[in-house]
């Protein structure tokens, strides 16, 4: 694809200089496609049988379980609580609301190493939250798999809130009023009128958060004990393999993660398309 595509399709309107196009593609090529191609080329060089063998070693499978499994739990938790937080931000008035609103974005802004440091301090067995959890329930959070879960929850918290909030704000009061007039209870109105309209946004947020949590490294590596078969995540395994000069294994596990990212990007896009279509289909009163 190049400037010729543009010219054919749209250019009677405004002749833009073609150098932004060339620069965009050159930049994408050097910064994105070259490294991506390098990884895929190396992965192709491994051969299918060997690839499968390395991708499914017990060690690798255990890390997938931790990464993909715990990230799913974290993203789902944030699906529920993200909706609740968005609801509190849009439909309630309470003191401290602006602070809450600002805090939601902190996981986006805070470097992950700082997040890892602070989470592992607060959730360690002598931390503010970790100590009571340990004393009352014997639950060791930091340097154990629940710590990994906490880090993943932290890192994926903003997504659902920020995707649901605008949709919730734009919901038309008429529909809920109609439901009320027809005798629906609050619960019925919520589950049958409001929730279906929010669903595409919730799922898109969950998918984005999931994809982020699966790939997260900085905060998780600091709160995890990084013990294989217990709380070792796939990105950390890639780094360990690199440190052992086992380039082949690192390439294979990295490719598995890359393929997952591409798939989740596709799902997120489809969900967004679904959300748009849904918005158009709903007749506006």
């Amino acid at each position, binding site marked *: 694809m190049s400037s010729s595509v543009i010219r054919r399709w*749209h250019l009677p309107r405004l002749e833009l200089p073609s150098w932004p196009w060339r*620069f965009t593609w050159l930049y994408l090529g050097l910064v994105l496609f070259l490294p991506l191609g390098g990884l895929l080329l190396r992965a192709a060089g491994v051969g299918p049988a060997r690839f499968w063998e390395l991708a499914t070693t017990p060690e690798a499978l255990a890390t997938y379980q931790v990464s993909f499994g715990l990230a799913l739990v974290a993203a789902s938790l944030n699906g529920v609580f993200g909706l609740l937080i968005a*609801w*509190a931000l849009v439909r309630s008035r309470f003191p401290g609301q602006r602070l809450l609103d600002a805090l939601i974005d902190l996981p986006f802004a805070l470097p992950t190493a700082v997040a890892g440091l602070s989470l592992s301090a607060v959730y360690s067995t002598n931390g503010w939250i970790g100590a009571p959890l340990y004393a009352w329930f014997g639950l060791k959070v930091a340097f154990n798999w629940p710590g990994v879960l906490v880090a993943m929850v932290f890192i994926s918290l903003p997504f659902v809130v920020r995707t649901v909030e605008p949709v919730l704000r734009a919901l038309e009061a008429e529909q809920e009023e109609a439901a009320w007039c027809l005798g629906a209870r609050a619960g019925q109105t919520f589950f049958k009128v409001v929730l279906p309209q929010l669903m595409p946004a919730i799922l898109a947020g969950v998918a984005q958060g999931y994809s982020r949590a699966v790939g997260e490294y900085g905060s998780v590596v600091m709160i995890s004990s990084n013990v294989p078969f217990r709380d070792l995540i796939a990105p950390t395994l890639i780094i360990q393999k690199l440190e052992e000069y086992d380039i082949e294994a690192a390439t294979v596990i990295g490719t598995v993660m890359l393929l997952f990212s591409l798939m989740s990007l596709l799902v997120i896009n489809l969900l967004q398309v679904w959300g748009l279509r849904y918005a158009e289909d709903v007749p506006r009163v």
Partner: protein
Amino acid sequence: MTTISPPRTELSDPIAPPGKPARRSLASRLLPALVPLVACLYVGVVIFLPALNVVLQAFAKGLAPFLENLQNEELRSAIRLTLLITLIAVPANAVFGLAAATAIARHQFRGKALLLSVIDLPFSISPVVVGLMLVLLFSPSHGLLEGLVNSTGWKILFSWPSMVLATIIVSMPFMAREVIPLLEEEGWEQEEAAKTLGATDWQIFWKVTLPTVRWAALYGLILTTARALGEFGAVAVVSGNIAGETQTLPLFVEDAYKQYHTELAYGAALILGAVAILSLLLKLTLERLLERDRSQR
């Protein structure tokens, strides 16, 4: 509004619908208070307490030890390297974002959605995989470009060039993502007018396009900078993590923490945290400006 205004599903005040006896269940009376309470508790436990903890720990022994920690030579070198990387990566991505936006936003072409997804790709790839990709390219012993690396003698891996590249990749989408939707919304009448009046492309860009997108571009710039300053995973893989040489501030935080230099770790973390909070404040201000711009149109 009509005479009766039924409540939105605030779960707050379910006036009984017509024909039903007025009845307020316990749940519907508690929910309106409960929703914000649970929201605050959740955010408090996951975000607020950890953030507060860093600040308190950094100043645990007062201001003097904190300032003393700032004299640490390795910390200073980490700050310098982080600034260097940011100063290269952010302008590069800013130029890319603006170029991509002017090239993409105002045209419909086959594969546009795909191209936008491709630009978003660094958001969904794990930073560690980004680092791995660079290792596979530039490693002098087994990289795809080892010929180039060895014949020129450039030290790319385990040195600042690969760290810059890693930072560029992970922070690439922010600028483009902020500017493209705004330009799409805006239409191109103004550019056309400028063109008719004989302006050159360069003049159009500086005098029409850039002023139009200024707040969005600044917003994108802040997000890019925040990410570039804080990047950990991708940089960790390619840096080699040598204290005083190839250690950025986030890497320093982790290293100091692992070496039980807890105060030093908290001091460095506080610097990064302060920058993060500053970027959040700037973001909020810009959101207000963007909103104002939009309502004036």
